[in-house]
């Protein structure tokens, strides 16, 4: 039973890492399409560009909220962007 519980927990941890990586993939995709979002994102999160790339490059130990918030910021910036207003 304990083995099964541990296995399920391991699965959960792997899933968590996968989700963070999917977030990172989507965030990087947006940053690649519009590089001006890099500084918008780092300014909004109050971190340096280096720290932002560190967190995008290594998801271990970074809470999923960081990526959730980042994606949210990108989404709202695109929504508020000038071209959308037009």
């Amino acid at each position, binding site marked *: 039973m304990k083995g099964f*519980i541990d296995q399920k927990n391991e699965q959960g941890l792997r899933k968590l890492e996968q989700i963070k990586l999917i977030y990172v993939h989507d965030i990087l995709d947006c940053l690649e399409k519009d590089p001006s979002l890099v500084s918008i994102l780092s300014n909004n999160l109050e971190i340096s560009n280096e720290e932002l790339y560190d967190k995008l490059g290594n998801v271990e130990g970074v809470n999923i909220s960081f990526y959730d918030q980042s994606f949210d910021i990108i989404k709202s910036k695109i929504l508020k962007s000038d071209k959308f207003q037009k």
Partner: protein
Amino acid sequence: MYIKKFNIDREVIFYMDEQLKEHRDSYYDVIVLLQDKKDVLEALPTPEYQNFFPLMEGIISRLVEECMEYQTLGNDKEALEIIRELQEKIELCKSEVENVKKQLADDNLVNQATYSKRRLVFAKTTYGETFLERDLKDIPPEYYGKVLSALDFLEFGEMKSNKEKVRQLTNNKKMFGLYEIKEFKIRLIYRVLSNNIVYVMQARMKKDDNALIDQKEVINRSRTTSDEYRQLKKIVQDPTECDMLLQENEIICCKIRQKLEENKRSNKGEKK
């Protein structure tokens, strides 16, 4: 052309909305699998982020839905085990939400005002020096007297009747849980650790010309100290560890006061 552009952007936003929804649903997929309480807590959203409450509500309601579905299966042994597991997770998530709500309530100024003396714990840099001592290097010595007054007020001040001197920083959600004491141009930033224990994070001079820089400095310090603050929140729950922490900080406080007094005295242009 604009209409075409508008439609493209609408598609982008719709696509991103869907992605975000999927991402958020995945919080639940992780929580359902995790068995270790510590891992579950670490996988939950953090209270500093704006989406904490809606995300937690979403996770809890999905757990409840899942639980209700299993309850329809009757007394199946396996189903009962899953129900028990889900209920534990629901309770864990609910208690996390309650803790954050309680913290918000405990931190408020009315509660702080009920203590005639507050104990000060100073935020430290990774080199072990206090941030306050480091901040003093950027403050002209003629203002040291004001820093001392701000520390005195934080320690012994009557907060209830001094609303112009102490305020909660609410103009930016990143300043969640932060308070400011005002002494002429000096600002002392702190947050509450527990009941009568406060965490002194920053002393700085107000920059008249740029409120945004002021705000950014506070937010940056809040981020830099957030890990230590979280650790200290746990330490103050343990009476023995808390006692040691307070003793250590009593000594630090004396040293800081001494330094401020010495430099204040040696400077003739002290601000009145």
